[in-house]
Protein backbone atom coordinates (compact mmCIF):
# COMPACT_ATOMS: atom_id res chain seq x y z
CA UNK A 1 0.00 0.00 0.00
CA UNK A 2 2.76 2.37 0.95
CA UNK A 3 4.44 2.03 -2.40
CA UNK A 4 1.25 3.02 -4.18
CA UNK A 5 0.76 6.00 -1.89
CA UNK A 6 4.32 7.02 -2.64
CA UNK A 7 3.75 6.66 -6.36
CA UNK A 8 0.65 8.82 -6.22
CA UNK A 9 2.36 11.45 -4.12
CA UNK A 10 5.31 11.64 -6.48
CA UNK A 11 2.93 11.82 -9.42
CA UNK A 12 0.98 14.64 -7.75
CA UNK A 13 4.14 16.53 -6.98
CA UNK A 14 5.16 16.25 -10.64
CA UNK A 15 1.70 17.44 -11.50
CA UNK A 16 2.74 20.98 -10.42
CA UNK A 17 -0.81 22.00 -9.51
CA UNK A 18 -0.13 21.11 -5.91
CA UNK A 19 3.09 23.12 -5.97
CA UNK A 20 1.21 26.11 -7.31
CA UNK A 21 -1.42 25.54 -4.62
CA UNK A 22 1.23 25.45 -1.92
CA UNK A 23 2.84 28.63 -3.21
CA UNK A 24 -0.51 30.38 -3.48
CA UNK A 25 -1.48 29.45 0.07
CA UNK A 26 1.94 30.44 1.34
CA UNK A 27 1.82 33.84 -0.36
CA UNK A 28 -1.71 34.45 0.89
CA UNK A 29 -1.01 33.49 4.46
CA UNK A 30 2.39 35.13 4.82
CA UNK A 31 1.17 38.33 3.26
CA UNK A 32 -1.93 38.21 5.45
CA UNK A 33 0.29 38.44 8.49
CA UNK A 34 3.08 40.60 7.13
CA UNK A 35 1.09 43.26 5.31
CA UNK A 36 -1.81 43.72 7.69
CA UNK A 37 -1.02 46.00 10.57
CA UNK A 38 -2.95 43.93 13.00
CA UNK A 39 -2.74 40.24 13.59
CA UNK A 40 -6.48 39.89 13.82
CA UNK A 41 -6.93 40.72 10.16
CA UNK A 42 -4.37 38.12 9.20
CA UNK A 43 -6.35 35.54 11.12
CA UNK A 44 -9.50 36.58 9.29
CA UNK A 45 -7.79 36.19 5.93
CA UNK A 46 -6.69 32.72 6.99
CA UNK A 47 -10.21 31.91 8.14
CA UNK A 48 -11.45 32.73 4.65
CA UNK A 49 -8.70 30.62 3.12
CA UNK A 50 -9.70 27.71 5.30
CA UNK A 51 -13.40 28.09 4.61
CA UNK A 52 -13.25 28.88 0.90
CA UNK A 53 -9.99 28.29 -0.90
CA UNK A 54 -9.08 25.02 0.72
CA UNK A 55 -12.46 23.37 0.15
CA UNK A 56 -12.61 24.54 -3.45
CA UNK A 57 -9.10 23.49 -4.37
CA UNK A 58 -9.30 20.20 -2.48
CA UNK A 59 -12.62 19.14 -3.93
CA UNK A 60 -11.79 20.20 -7.51
CA UNK A 61 -8.27 18.89 -7.57
CA UNK A 62 -9.32 15.54 -6.14
CA UNK A 63 -12.15 15.08 -8.62
CA UNK A 64 -9.98 15.99 -11.59
CA UNK A 65 -7.14 13.82 -10.39
CA UNK A 66 -9.36 10.81 -9.93
CA UNK A 67 -10.85 11.19 -13.38
CA UNK A 68 -7.39 11.55 -14.87
CA UNK A 69 -6.16 8.51 -12.98
CA UNK A 70 -8.74 6.27 -14.56
CA UNK A 71 -6.13 4.38 -16.58
CA UNK A 72 -3.89 4.05 -13.60
CA UNK A 73 -6.71 2.67 -11.48
CA UNK A 74 -7.65 0.26 -14.27
CA UNK A 75 -4.08 -0.96 -14.50
CA UNK A 76 -3.90 -1.49 -10.76
CA UNK A 77 -7.23 -3.30 -10.60
CA UNK A 78 -6.00 -5.91 -13.09
CA UNK A 79 -3.06 -6.56 -10.79
CA UNK A 80 -3.15 -8.76 -7.69
CA UNK A 81 -4.27 -5.96 -5.43
CA UNK A 82 -7.28 -5.60 -3.22
CA UNK A 83 -9.60 -2.92 -4.52
CA UNK A 84 -9.94 -1.45 -1.05
CA UNK A 85 -6.23 -1.01 -0.94
CA UNK A 86 -6.09 0.79 -4.27
CA UNK A 87 -8.85 3.19 -3.27
CA UNK A 88 -7.48 3.86 0.19
CA UNK A 89 -3.99 4.41 -1.21
CA UNK A 90 -5.42 6.86 -3.68
CA UNK A 91 -7.19 8.69 -0.84
CA UNK A 92 -4.08 8.96 1.27
CA UNK A 93 -1.94 9.88 -1.70
CA UNK A 94 -4.17 12.79 -2.64
CA UNK A 95 -5.14 13.98 0.83
CA UNK A 96 -1.59 13.51 2.08
CA UNK A 97 -0.23 15.80 -0.62
CA UNK A 98 -2.93 18.41 0.01
CA UNK A 99 -2.46 18.25 3.78
CA UNK A 100 1.27 18.61 3.35
CA UNK A 101 0.74 21.61 1.09
CA UNK A 102 -1.60 23.22 3.64
CA UNK A 103 0.60 22.60 6.65
CA UNK A 104 3.72 23.76 4.88
CA UNK A 105 2.22 26.95 3.51
CA UNK A 106 -0.31 28.02 6.14
CA UNK A 107 0.81 26.09 9.17
CA UNK A 108 4.11 27.87 9.66
CA UNK A 109 2.80 31.46 9.67
CA UNK A 110 -0.18 30.37 11.73
CA UNK A 111 2.02 28.90 14.43
CA UNK A 112 4.41 31.85 14.28
CA UNK A 113 1.90 34.70 14.36
CA UNK A 114 -1.33 33.48 15.89
CA UNK A 115 -2.20 32.69 19.45
CA UNK A 116 -1.12 29.08 19.97
CA UNK A 117 -4.47 27.61 20.92
CA UNK A 118 -6.30 29.41 18.14
CA UNK A 119 -3.55 28.47 15.70
CA UNK A 120 -3.82 24.80 16.58
CA UNK A 121 -7.60 24.83 16.29
CA UNK A 122 -7.36 26.50 12.89
CA UNK A 123 -4.78 24.00 11.70
CA UNK A 124 -6.91 21.12 12.94
CA UNK A 125 -9.99 22.50 11.24
CA UNK A 126 -8.06 23.18 8.02
CA UNK A 127 -6.75 19.62 7.93
CA UNK A 128 -10.16 18.15 8.62
CA UNK A 129 -11.77 20.29 5.93
CA UNK A 130 -9.13 19.14 3.45
CA UNK A 131 -9.85 15.51 4.29
CA UNK A 132 -13.60 16.04 4.13
CA UNK A 133 -13.46 17.72 0.74
CA UNK A 134 -11.24 14.97 -0.64
CA UNK A 135 -13.69 12.37 0.68
CA UNK A 136 -16.65 14.21 -0.81
CA UNK A 137 -14.87 14.41 -4.15
CA UNK A 138 -14.21 10.67 -3.94
CA UNK A 139 -17.85 9.87 -3.43
CA UNK A 140 -18.93 12.28 -6.17
CA UNK A 141 -16.68 10.69 -8.75
CA UNK A 142 -18.07 7.24 -8.07
CA UNK A 143 -21.51 8.47 -9.07
CA UNK A 144 -20.66 9.37 -12.62
CA UNK A 145 -18.10 8.30 -15.18
CA UNK A 146 -18.43 11.55 -17.06
CA UNK A 147 -15.61 13.87 -16.09
CA UNK A 148 -17.42 17.08 -16.98
CA UNK A 149 -20.47 16.01 -15.06
CA UNK A 150 -18.39 14.94 -12.10
CA UNK A 151 -16.57 18.25 -11.91
CA UNK A 152 -19.90 20.03 -12.20
CA UNK A 153 -21.21 18.04 -9.26
CA UNK A 154 -18.28 18.90 -7.00
CA UNK A 155 -18.51 22.60 -7.84
CA UNK A 156 -22.19 22.58 -6.98
CA UNK A 157 -21.41 20.76 -3.74
CA UNK A 158 -18.80 23.34 -2.87
CA UNK A 159 -21.25 26.16 -3.56
CA UNK A 160 -23.79 24.39 -1.45
CA UNK A 161 -21.51 23.96 1.55
CA UNK A 162 -19.89 27.37 1.30
CA UNK A 163 -22.89 29.49 0.45
CA UNK A 164 -26.28 27.93 -0.14
CA UNK A 165 -26.50 26.00 3.10
CA UNK A 166 -25.86 29.15 5.12
CA UNK A 167 -28.49 31.03 3.19
CA UNK A 168 -30.91 28.28 4.04
CA UNK A 169 -29.98 28.53 7.72
CA UNK A 170 -30.45 32.30 7.62
CA UNK A 171 -33.84 31.87 6.04
CA UNK A 172 -34.92 29.37 8.69
CA UNK A 173 -33.56 31.59 11.47
CA UNK A 174 -35.66 34.53 10.41
CA UNK A 175 -38.70 32.51 9.41
CA UNK A 176 -38.86 30.80 12.79
CA UNK A 177 -37.49 33.66 14.86
CA UNK A 178 -40.39 33.37 17.33
CA UNK A 179 -39.59 29.80 18.28
CA UNK A 180 -36.79 28.45 20.47
CA UNK A 181 -34.71 27.12 17.64
CA UNK A 182 -31.15 27.55 18.87
CA UNK A 183 -30.67 23.94 19.78
CA UNK A 184 -32.25 22.47 16.63
CA UNK A 185 -30.09 24.93 14.69
CA UNK A 186 -27.01 23.47 16.29
CA UNK A 187 -27.96 20.08 14.96
CA UNK A 188 -28.59 21.58 11.55
CA UNK A 189 -25.17 23.13 11.52
CA UNK A 190 -23.73 19.66 12.03
CA UNK A 191 -24.99 18.95 8.51
CA UNK A 192 -22.35 21.24 7.08
CA UNK A 193 -18.74 20.47 7.96
CA UNK A 194 -17.61 23.95 6.93
CA UNK A 195 -20.01 25.44 9.47
CA UNK A 196 -18.79 23.13 12.21
CA UNK A 197 -15.25 24.21 11.48
CA UNK A 198 -16.18 27.87 11.28
CA UNK A 199 -17.98 27.89 14.62
CA UNK A 200 -15.13 26.01 16.28
CA UNK A 201 -12.75 28.74 15.15
CA UNK A 202 -15.21 31.52 16.04
CA UNK A 203 -15.44 30.30 19.61
CA UNK A 204 -11.77 31.06 19.95
CA UNK A 205 -11.53 34.05 17.67
CA UNK A 206 -14.59 36.00 18.77
CA UNK A 207 -14.92 34.79 22.31
CA UNK A 208 -16.41 38.03 23.54
CA UNK A 209 -19.19 38.20 20.98
CA UNK A 210 -19.92 34.52 21.15
CA UNK A 211 -20.53 34.90 24.86
CA UNK A 212 -23.71 36.81 24.07
CA UNK A 213 -27.15 35.32 24.15
CA UNK A 214 -26.96 32.60 21.53
CA UNK A 215 -23.25 32.38 21.90
CA UNK A 216 -23.75 31.13 25.41
CA UNK A 217 -25.45 28.03 24.06
CA UNK A 218 -22.73 27.45 21.49
CA UNK A 219 -20.14 27.86 24.11
CA UNK A 220 -21.87 25.42 26.40
CA UNK A 221 -22.09 22.89 23.61
CA UNK A 222 -18.99 23.54 21.56
CA UNK A 223 -16.67 25.49 23.80
CA UNK A 224 -15.93 22.81 26.34
CA UNK A 225 -13.35 20.13 25.77
CA UNK A 226 -16.11 17.59 25.20
CA UNK A 227 -17.68 20.00 22.73
CA UNK A 228 -14.45 20.33 20.78
CA UNK A 229 -14.11 16.57 20.82
CA UNK A 230 -17.68 16.11 19.58
CA UNK A 231 -17.10 18.66 16.86
CA UNK A 232 -13.94 16.91 15.71
CA UNK A 233 -15.68 13.54 15.85
CA UNK A 234 -18.40 15.01 13.62
CA UNK A 235 -15.71 16.24 11.26
CA UNK A 236 -14.10 12.81 11.24
CA UNK A 237 -17.50 11.26 10.49
CA UNK A 238 -17.80 13.71 7.64
CA UNK A 239 -14.59 12.23 6.27
CA UNK A 240 -15.19 8.59 7.02
CA UNK A 241 -18.80 8.26 5.91
CA UNK A 242 -18.44 9.74 2.40
CA UNK A 243 -15.22 7.86 1.85
CA UNK A 244 -16.77 4.64 3.07
CA UNK A 245 -19.69 5.07 0.64
CA UNK A 246 -17.24 5.74 -2.17
CA UNK A 247 -15.29 2.64 -1.17
CA UNK A 248 -18.36 0.43 -1.38
CA UNK A 249 -19.25 1.94 -4.72
CA UNK A 250 -15.73 1.51 -6.02
CA UNK A 251 -15.68 -2.12 -4.95
CA UNK A 252 -18.66 -2.73 -7.20
CA UNK A 253 -17.53 -0.57 -10.03
CA UNK A 254 -16.90 -2.00 -13.49
CA UNK A 255 -13.76 -0.79 -15.15
Amino acid at each position, binding site marked *: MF*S*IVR*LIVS*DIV*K*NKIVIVYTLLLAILSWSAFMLEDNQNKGILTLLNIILLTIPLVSILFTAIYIY*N*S*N*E*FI*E*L*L*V*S*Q*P*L*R*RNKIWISLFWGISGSLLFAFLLSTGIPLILFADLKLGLIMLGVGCMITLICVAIAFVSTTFTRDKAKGIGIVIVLWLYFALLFDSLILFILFEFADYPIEKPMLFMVALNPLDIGRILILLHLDVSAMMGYTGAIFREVLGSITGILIAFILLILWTVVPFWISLIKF*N*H*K*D*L
Partner: protein
Amino acid sequence: MIRLENISKRFGKLQALKQVSIHFESNSCVALIGPNACGKTTLIKSILGMVIPDSGYIYFKEKSIKNDFLYRQEIGYMPQIGRYPEHMSIGKVLEMIQNIRKKTEYDDELLRTFQIDKMYDKKMHTLSGGTRQKVSAVLAFLFNPDVLILDEPTAGLDPLASEILKDKIIKEKKKGKLILITSHQLSELDDLVTEIVLMQEGNVHFHYPVETLQKQTKEERISKAIAKILKQQQYV
Protein backbone atom coordinates in the same frame (compact mmCIF):
# COMPACT_ATOMS: atom_id res chain seq x y z
CA MET B 1 -8.59 -24.13 -14.15
CA ILE B 2 -11.08 -21.32 -14.74
CA ARG B 3 -14.75 -22.10 -14.45
CA LEU B 4 -17.63 -19.69 -14.97
CA GLU B 5 -21.11 -20.60 -13.78
CA ASN B 6 -24.18 -18.73 -14.98
CA ILE B 7 -22.49 -15.39 -15.27
CA SER B 8 -24.78 -12.51 -16.17
CA LYS B 9 -23.90 -8.89 -16.56
CA ARG B 10 -25.98 -5.97 -17.65
CA PHE B 11 -24.72 -2.48 -18.51
CA GLY B 12 -27.78 -0.30 -18.46
CA LYS B 13 -29.94 -1.52 -21.29
CA LEU B 14 -27.29 -3.78 -22.74
CA GLN B 15 -27.24 -7.35 -21.52
CA ALA B 16 -23.54 -8.06 -22.01
CA LEU B 17 -23.48 -11.62 -20.67
CA LYS B 18 -26.43 -13.95 -20.42
CA GLN B 19 -26.06 -16.88 -18.07
CA VAL B 20 -22.66 -17.80 -19.41
CA SER B 21 -21.18 -21.03 -18.16
CA ILE B 22 -17.83 -22.06 -19.52
CA HIS B 23 -14.76 -23.97 -18.47
CA PHE B 24 -11.11 -23.52 -19.43
CA GLU B 25 -8.40 -26.06 -18.68
CA SER B 26 -4.68 -25.56 -18.47
CA ASN B 27 -2.43 -26.59 -21.31
CA SER B 28 -4.75 -25.09 -23.88
CA CYS B 29 -4.97 -22.04 -25.99
CA VAL B 30 -8.50 -20.77 -26.27
CA ALA B 31 -9.68 -18.31 -28.86
CA LEU B 32 -12.63 -16.19 -27.88
CA ILE B 33 -14.23 -14.99 -31.06
CA GLY B 34 -17.38 -13.24 -32.05
CA PRO B 35 -18.67 -9.98 -33.48
CA ASN B 36 -18.17 -6.63 -31.81
CA ALA B 37 -20.01 -6.12 -28.54
CA CYS B 38 -20.69 -9.81 -28.12
CA GLY B 39 -19.35 -9.84 -24.59
CA LYS B 40 -15.80 -11.10 -25.10
CA THR B 41 -14.10 -8.30 -23.25
CA THR B 42 -16.73 -8.32 -20.52
CA LEU B 43 -16.08 -12.00 -20.03
CA ILE B 44 -12.35 -11.43 -19.75
CA LYS B 45 -12.76 -8.51 -17.42
CA SER B 46 -15.09 -10.58 -15.25
CA ILE B 47 -12.38 -13.18 -14.88
CA LEU B 48 -9.93 -10.43 -13.96
CA GLY B 49 -12.31 -8.96 -11.42
CA MET B 50 -12.47 -5.67 -13.25
CA VAL B 51 -16.10 -6.15 -14.04
CA ILE B 52 -18.27 -7.48 -11.27
CA PRO B 53 -20.99 -9.82 -12.56
CA ASP B 54 -24.58 -9.30 -11.49
CA SER B 55 -24.98 -12.99 -10.80
CA GLY B 56 -23.12 -16.26 -11.11
CA TYR B 57 -19.81 -17.56 -9.88
CA ILE B 58 -16.28 -17.62 -11.20
CA TYR B 59 -13.78 -20.17 -9.92
CA PHE B 60 -10.05 -19.95 -10.40
CA LYS B 61 -8.33 -23.23 -9.57
CA GLU B 62 -11.57 -24.33 -7.86
CA LYS B 63 -11.64 -21.25 -5.64
CA SER B 64 -14.24 -18.53 -5.98
CA ILE B 65 -12.67 -15.25 -6.99
CA LYS B 66 -15.22 -13.26 -5.08
CA ASN B 67 -13.43 -11.23 -2.41
CA ASP B 68 -10.16 -12.73 -3.57
CA PHE B 69 -7.44 -10.83 -5.33
CA LEU B 70 -4.33 -12.93 -4.95
CA TYR B 71 -5.36 -15.23 -7.81
CA ARG B 72 -4.44 -12.36 -10.12
CA GLN B 73 -0.82 -13.15 -9.27
CA GLU B 74 -1.16 -16.02 -11.66
CA ILE B 75 -2.71 -14.10 -14.52
CA GLY B 76 -0.92 -12.02 -17.09
CA TYR B 77 -3.28 -9.62 -18.80
CA MET B 78 -2.75 -7.73 -21.98
CA PRO B 79 -5.61 -5.29 -22.51
CA GLN B 80 -7.11 -4.35 -25.85
CA ILE B 81 -5.98 -0.77 -25.45
CA GLY B 82 -3.19 -0.39 -22.97
CA ARG B 83 -3.96 2.63 -20.83
CA TYR B 84 -1.22 3.85 -18.53
CA PRO B 85 -0.63 6.90 -16.36
CA GLU B 86 0.37 9.45 -18.93
CA HIS B 87 3.13 11.10 -16.94
CA MET B 88 4.92 7.91 -16.05
CA SER B 89 7.91 6.61 -17.93
CA ILE B 90 8.01 3.03 -19.17
CA GLY B 91 10.63 2.22 -16.59
CA LYS B 92 8.42 3.57 -13.80
CA VAL B 93 5.43 1.58 -14.95
CA LEU B 94 7.47 -1.62 -15.06
CA GLU B 95 9.00 -0.85 -11.69
CA MET B 96 5.61 -0.14 -10.16
CA ILE B 97 4.09 -3.40 -11.40
CA GLN B 98 7.18 -5.28 -10.26
CA ASN B 99 6.73 -3.73 -6.84
CA ILE B 100 3.13 -4.83 -6.73
CA ARG B 101 3.79 -8.36 -7.94
CA LYS B 102 6.68 -8.90 -5.59
CA LYS B 103 8.27 -11.56 -7.75
CA THR B 104 11.98 -11.79 -8.14
CA GLU B 105 12.21 -13.89 -11.28
CA TYR B 106 11.22 -12.28 -14.50
CA ASP B 107 10.64 -13.56 -17.96
CA ASP B 108 12.20 -10.68 -19.81
CA GLU B 109 12.37 -12.28 -23.23
CA LEU B 110 9.82 -9.93 -24.76
CA LEU B 111 11.36 -6.98 -22.99
CA ARG B 112 14.54 -7.61 -24.88
CA THR B 113 13.16 -8.71 -28.23
CA PHE B 114 10.79 -5.72 -28.35
CA GLN B 115 13.72 -3.56 -27.25
CA ILE B 116 11.56 -1.92 -24.60
CA ASP B 117 14.49 -1.89 -22.21
CA LYS B 118 16.10 0.75 -24.43
CA MET B 119 13.32 3.27 -23.95
CA TYR B 120 12.86 3.14 -20.18
CA ASP B 121 12.87 6.92 -19.90
CA LYS B 122 10.13 7.56 -22.42
CA LYS B 123 6.91 8.90 -20.97
CA MET B 124 3.79 6.91 -21.68
CA HIS B 125 2.02 9.78 -23.44
CA THR B 126 4.78 10.04 -26.03
CA LEU B 127 4.40 6.43 -27.14
CA SER B 128 2.69 5.21 -30.32
CA GLY B 129 -0.19 2.76 -30.07
CA GLY B 130 2.06 -0.07 -31.21
CA THR B 131 4.69 0.60 -28.60
CA ARG B 132 2.04 0.70 -25.92
CA GLN B 133 0.84 -2.68 -27.07
CA LYS B 134 4.39 -3.93 -26.79
CA VAL B 135 4.58 -2.60 -23.21
CA SER B 136 1.30 -4.35 -22.43
CA ALA B 137 2.64 -7.60 -23.87
CA VAL B 138 5.85 -7.29 -21.90
CA LEU B 139 3.90 -6.75 -18.71
CA ALA B 140 1.62 -9.70 -19.38
CA PHE B 141 4.47 -12.13 -19.87
CA LEU B 142 6.95 -10.59 -17.43
CA PHE B 143 5.94 -12.57 -14.37
CA ASN B 144 5.71 -15.95 -16.01
CA PRO B 145 2.06 -16.46 -14.97
CA ASP B 146 0.07 -19.68 -15.34
CA VAL B 147 -2.70 -17.97 -17.21
CA LEU B 148 -2.36 -15.43 -19.98
CA ILE B 149 -5.31 -13.36 -21.02
CA LEU B 150 -4.68 -11.49 -24.21
CA ASP B 151 -7.33 -9.12 -25.53
CA GLU B 152 -6.70 -8.53 -29.24
CA PRO B 153 -2.97 -9.03 -28.79
CA THR B 154 -1.84 -8.40 -32.33
CA ALA B 155 -4.05 -5.42 -33.13
CA GLY B 156 -1.83 -2.45 -33.79
CA LEU B 157 1.41 -4.40 -33.86
CA ASP B 158 3.59 -4.41 -36.91
CA PRO B 159 3.97 -7.82 -38.67
CA LEU B 160 7.39 -8.42 -37.20
CA ALA B 161 6.31 -7.74 -33.61
CA SER B 162 3.19 -9.72 -34.27
CA GLU B 163 5.29 -12.74 -35.24
CA ILE B 164 7.51 -12.36 -32.19
CA LEU B 165 4.42 -12.28 -29.98
CA LYS B 166 2.93 -15.34 -31.67
CA ASP B 167 6.13 -17.27 -31.21
CA LYS B 168 6.12 -16.29 -27.58
CA ILE B 169 2.53 -17.46 -27.16
CA ILE B 170 3.34 -20.83 -28.73
CA LYS B 171 6.34 -21.15 -26.49
CA GLU B 172 4.27 -20.46 -23.40
CA LYS B 173 1.55 -22.84 -24.49
CA LYS B 174 4.10 -25.58 -24.66
CA LYS B 175 4.87 -24.97 -21.00
CA GLY B 176 1.34 -26.15 -20.22
CA LYS B 177 -0.24 -22.79 -19.58
CA LEU B 178 -3.78 -21.64 -20.22
CA ILE B 179 -3.92 -18.91 -22.81
CA LEU B 180 -7.08 -16.96 -23.54
CA ILE B 181 -7.04 -14.90 -26.71
CA THR B 182 -9.71 -12.75 -28.19
CA SER B 183 -9.33 -11.75 -31.75
CA HIS B 184 -11.19 -10.56 -34.77
CA GLN B 185 -8.60 -11.74 -37.20
CA LEU B 186 -9.29 -15.41 -37.31
CA SER B 187 -6.47 -16.04 -39.77
CA GLU B 188 -3.95 -15.10 -37.09
CA LEU B 189 -5.04 -17.87 -34.83
CA ASP B 190 -4.46 -20.84 -37.13
CA ASP B 191 -1.26 -22.20 -35.72
CA LEU B 192 -1.98 -21.16 -32.13
CA VAL B 193 -5.28 -22.24 -30.77
CA THR B 194 -6.51 -25.54 -29.49
CA GLU B 195 -10.05 -24.51 -28.62
CA ILE B 196 -12.54 -22.08 -30.09
CA VAL B 197 -15.28 -20.25 -28.22
CA LEU B 198 -17.75 -18.35 -30.32
CA MET B 199 -19.82 -15.74 -28.55
CA GLN B 200 -22.86 -13.96 -29.83
CA GLU B 201 -24.98 -11.36 -28.03
CA GLY B 202 -23.79 -12.39 -24.63
CA ASN B 203 -24.16 -16.11 -25.15
CA VAL B 204 -21.58 -18.77 -25.75
CA HIS B 205 -22.56 -19.96 -29.19
CA PHE B 206 -20.24 -22.93 -29.16
CA HIS B 207 -17.09 -24.15 -27.50
CA TYR B 208 -15.21 -26.77 -29.51
CA PRO B 209 -11.71 -28.11 -29.67
CA VAL B 210 -10.12 -27.17 -32.96
CA GLU B 211 -9.89 -30.77 -34.19
CA THR B 212 -13.59 -31.30 -33.75
CA LEU B 213 -14.23 -28.18 -35.72
CA GLN B 214 -11.90 -29.22 -38.47
CA LYS B 215 -13.43 -32.68 -38.70
CA GLN B 216 -16.98 -31.41 -38.78
CA THR B 217 -16.33 -28.87 -41.46
CA LYS B 218 -13.54 -30.69 -43.23
CA GLU B 219 -11.72 -27.42 -43.42
CA GLU B 220 -8.08 -27.02 -42.55
CA ARG B 221 -8.16 -23.35 -41.83
CA ILE B 222 -9.99 -22.18 -38.73
CA SER B 223 -11.40 -19.09 -40.31
CA LYS B 224 -12.98 -21.07 -43.09
CA ALA B 225 -14.24 -23.72 -40.70
CA ILE B 226 -16.00 -21.14 -38.60
CA ALA B 227 -17.46 -19.40 -41.58
CA LYS B 228 -18.82 -22.74 -42.77
CA ILE B 229 -20.35 -23.56 -39.44
CA LEU B 230 -22.03 -20.21 -39.21
CA LYS B 231 -23.45 -20.67 -42.68
CA GLN B 232 -24.70 -24.15 -41.91
CA GLN B 233 -26.43 -22.96 -38.85
CA GLN B 234 -28.06 -20.11 -40.67
CA TYR B 235 -29.63 -22.48 -43.16
CA VAL B 236 -30.79 -25.00 -40.64
